[in-house]
């Protein structure tokens, strides 16, 4: 019988390895740093477990780090941290003046936390961070840093292959960039999201039927005062409503199953279209716009949540996306409504044939969506 001794050992362990994808867990080692470039405050939190690799914290070797042992080694801990971190301004290293030290809690336990005042030449703010802590022990260790300036903040990561972090541009340019990115996403989502467009179309159709000064007006495609008031009411109601639910959902205060949200959105178009012909919900469209706007907001939120995972500043993303949706909405109306107006005056067929056909088409498409989207229970 062949029985090589190391092999069975190794294979048992390979059984775990090869198949065991869920095994990788706990948390890899991270340090957390917080820099406020306005007040020049810098804080760093390092896991006690990680520090024990650099400083013999467990003096009595009982496998535990006590408050007394931490106090005993505080000098060595600070020395190890300060030796591995350099904040600098204009290529000149800044001084770190310790202000407070103690412990803090993160998701995997206690960390040694230290707060410093950063003193750079000429009172400048630091523009660069070099971080080398623990890389020589743990290739998976990372230094996570949050940089705050004014009301803006950004996140960065230092790793063995990227030990220097630029503290400057991430702030302002980064925020503006994410605002404009999300603004564009908002515009795009409204314009390619056929369901939102159809809903809007159905809502504004009645306004195009209500013009009565067409004979006297020379520019008949321009909306009349009454029409503008009606449109403003509808768009405002829709906007307020979906802004509320978009915010509630984006901030995870309220969460609804997306499959049902999508179904109700499709159903809302059907109801709105039917309401044009048989105003069961009343002739006023703005309450309808408000009511269903609430549910459309959840639809926008599901797109936004996919885009924002990993985004540092949710507030900026939310604002940008919302503004984008509004701009898309206005652009659409600015183009379509005069067109509808023009058609309405050009031919009596508009009211008698075109509008009913369009409504019928919209109802058909939306019903199909309702059918497709209804989740199997």
């Amino acid at each position, binding site marked *: 019988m062949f029985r090589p001794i190391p092999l069975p050992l190794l294979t048992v362990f390979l059984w775990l390895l090869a198949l065991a994808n869920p095994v*990788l867990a706990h948390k890899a080692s991270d340090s957390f740093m917080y820099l406020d470039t306005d007040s020049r405050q810098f804080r760093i939190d390092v896991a006690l477990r990680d520090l024990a690799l650099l400083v013999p914290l467990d003096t009595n070797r009982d496998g535990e780090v006590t408050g007394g042992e931490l106090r005993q080694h505080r000098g060595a801990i600070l020395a190890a941290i300060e030796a591995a971190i350099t904040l600098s301004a204009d290529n000149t290293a800044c001084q770190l003046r310790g202000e407070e030290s103690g412990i803090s809690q993160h998701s995997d336990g206690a960390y040694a936390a230290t707060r410093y005042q950063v003193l750079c030449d000429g009172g400048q703010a630091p523009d660069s961070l070099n971080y080398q802590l623990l890389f020589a022990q743990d290739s998976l260790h990372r230094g996570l840093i949050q940089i705050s300036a004014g009301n803006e903040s950004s996140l960065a990561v230092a790793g063995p292959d990227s030990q220097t972090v630029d503290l400057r541009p991430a702030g302002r340019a980064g925020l503006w960039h994410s605002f404009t990115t999300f603004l564009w996403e908002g515009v795009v989502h409204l314009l390619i999201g056929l369901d939102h467009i159809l809903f809007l179309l159905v809502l504004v159709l009645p306004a195009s039927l209500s013009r009565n000064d067409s004979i006297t007006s020379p520019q008949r495609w321009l909306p009349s005062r009454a029409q503008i008031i009606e449109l403003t009411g509808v768009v405002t109601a829709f906007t307020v409503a979906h802004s509320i639910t978009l915010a509630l959902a984006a901030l995870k205060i309220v969460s609804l199953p*997306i499959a049902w949200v999508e179904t109700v959105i499709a159903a809302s178009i059907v109801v709105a279209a039917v309401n044009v012909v048989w105003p069961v919900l009343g002739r006023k469209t703005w309450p309808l716009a408000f009511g269903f706007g609430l549910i459309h907001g959840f639809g926008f939120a599901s797109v936004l949540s996919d885009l924002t995972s990993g985004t540092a500043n949710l507030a900026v993303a939310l604002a940008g996306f919302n503004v984008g949706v509004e701009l898309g909405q206005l652009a659409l109306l600015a183009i379509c409504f005069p067109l509808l107006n023009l058609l309405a005056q050009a031919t009596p067929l508009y009211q008698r044939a075109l509008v009913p056909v369009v409504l019928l088409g919209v109802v058909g498409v939306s019903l199909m969506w309702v059918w497709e989207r209804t989740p199997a229970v």
Partner: protein
Amino acid sequence: MTCSVKKTLRRSDIRRRPAISFPALPGRAFWLGLTLAGSLLSASVVTSAPSPIQNDFSDHAVLATLPDMSPDLSSTPDNVEALADEVQQLIGQARSTGDPRFLGYAERLLQDWPEAGFTDRLRVLRATLAQSLHRFDAARQDLERVLQTTQQRQQRIQSRLTLANLELVQGNYGKARQHCQELAGIYPGLIAASCLAQTDARTGQADAAYAHLQAQQASASNADLTGQLWAEGTLGDLAAQLDLDSAAVHWGIVLQQSPDDLYTRTQLADWHLQAGNLQATLALTEGYKQVDALAVIRAIALREAGAPAAEALADSLRERFAEAQWRGTLLHQRDFARFQLDIENRPTLALKHALANWETQREPMDTRLALRAAHSAGDQPALERLHQWLAQYDQIDQRYPEAP
């Protein structure tokens, strides 16, 4: 993620944005909505500020417990065998505790060793490590090189087995079968038989594979403990695929022998969860909150049981995943996706991560999650793609929802 929002956007800041001063049509109403969003944000920001620095702990307070095997990283091993022993021990530690820090220590040791001084055993270990870190191509490269050059039978067996499993995990069943057959040639026994059984089961022959492996196990020598245990775990996998109650028995035997086998523990806990045996799920996951996969399963079970502890565990997972996202590498993408699907109720986001995970890992658990997420999100193209792949291999698993 809310936790990455560290600063409040004040109303005055929003007003300054030039893009917003565009048309005034929906004006006031829009600001109302945005202001509301702003004020809500300020409330959620409080929770995401760094936790306070405390100094009022006593000298006797235990602040941290160090792992049993504290690595001595002050001295690098001076010969290649000592290094390989240490790396192997560290990887084993990472496996049994689920703690990735040990993988980081192991990788650092390997990185410090000159490439010219690498032995076959060291390469196999490096591949094993790479596989654990989901760097499948790097793992494959090292293993194939060892297979081409090594004179050592043991390293050839080891590489063959690791490669077979790698291909199986990635869903390359043709290649997996080849490696299993090669393995059966140089190392016949229950391990190679299990390897082939897994491959057969995932390509349409689960019934036959289960019966055949059971017969092989019964006729094999009891002295081969490793092989017996390996076959037992595989039988558990196949039984679960066939929806046989014996799955719990097979996996239970493995866990009795090696309670640290987190893979089997996760499978069994998930099996009970799917069957609605919440008490069994909770018992299996008790004390494993540090392990993402088990903690997510526990959080779902707690919530389904209506236990008050459910929210606390969900909160701590939320924080953990948020930190992982800040870090930028989401190693446990499957667990994150499952958390989004079953706890956060965000199927679109869950689907995105479940599919990203499925690109590299196609174990039944990965496929099932992708199917469930695609289903909840109502994403027909994704569902079609998954169904197509399953049909291509004739893969049938009773745990999959709504398979065609």
